[in-house]
C-alpha cells in the first residue's frame, strides 16, 4: 500500500478500508464520484503490479 501514489492510496483507504461512501469522499476531495471510482481502479492495478513485483502470490 505504501508503494502507491498518495491519491491512489487515499482512494482505497477511504472507500474500502474505512468504508466511507463514495459521494462523501469525493466531495471531501473536491473530485467527481467518477474520478474517485477511476482512482480506485488504477490504485488496484498499481497494487496488483506492486504485489507481482514483490513476488506475492494471489
Amino acid at each position, binding site marked *: 500500500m505504501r508503494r502507491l501514489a498518495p491519491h491512489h492510496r487515499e482512494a482505497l483507504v477511504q472507500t474500502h478500508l474505512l468504508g466511507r461512501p463514495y459521494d462523501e469522499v469525493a466531495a471531501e476531495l473536491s473530485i467527481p464520484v467518477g474520478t474517485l471510482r477511476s482512482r480506485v*481502479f488504477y490504485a488496484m492495478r498499481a497494487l496488483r503490479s506492486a*504485489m507481482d513485483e514483490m513476488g506475492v502470490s494471489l
Partner: protein
Amino acid sequence: VSADDEAAHRGLRELLGSYALGHLSPADDDRLRAHLDGCPGCRAQLDELAPLADRLGLVDARAFGDVPVPPPTLGEDVRRAVTRARAERDADELARRRAAAAGQRRRRWVGTLTAASVVLVALIGGAMIGRATAPDPGRVPLEAISMEVGTDEDVTVESADLVDHTWGVELRIVALGFDAGETFRAEFRTTDGRLVPAGEFRGVGTRTMTCFLQSATMREDVTQVLVTDESGDTVMFSDL
C-alpha cells in the same frame, strides 16, 4: 469503434475496481456484469483485480488513516500567491523609481545637506548592520555532560558542556566551590587511554567561575573528562 464507444468502454472498465471490491450500486453492478459478458478484455482485468479484495480485507485501516492529502485548492492558492507577490514587486519597483526621481529633484536644492546626512546615516547604519551581522562567537552547539563530583569535594557544578570544534574539543564549566588560590587541571581521556591536558585554572572559592578549557584532541576521541587538584586527586569527572 467510435470515440464515444471508446469513452463508454473506458468508463465501464474503470468501474472494475469498485466492482471487485463490492462497492457498486445494484444498477451499476448489473450494467457492468452485462458488459463483462461480452468483453473478454475487461474479464481478464477483473481476474487480475478480484484476488486483491481479500488481501485488502486484511489491511489495518489505522495504519493508513493519516494519509496526508493536499488541499484541493493548493494549486490555485499557489498561483494566487505568486500573482500577488509579482504585483507587489512591480508596485515596489514603480514606487522606487518615483522615489528616486523625487530624490533627484530634492538634491538640487539641498545637495550639501543631503550629502552630509547620507554620510551620517551610512556611518550609523553601517555600524548597526555590522553589529547585527557580526558572528556571535558565543553561539556554538553545546553538548551538555554530567560531571560527577568527588564525595569529599565541596564543588557545585552549574553547567558543564563540551564543544565539538573543527580544531579540537572544548570543555565549558560554570561552577563554584573550587578552593580559592589552588590550581586545578582539566584533562581529556582519549580512546587509547591517554590523558591529554586541556588546561589549568585557579579556584575562586565560593564565587561562580566560568572556565573554557581546550585541547587539540577531537571530540570523537574523548571518552572521559577529568578535573584534578594540585595533589592529583580527582575533583570531578564525566564518563562519556
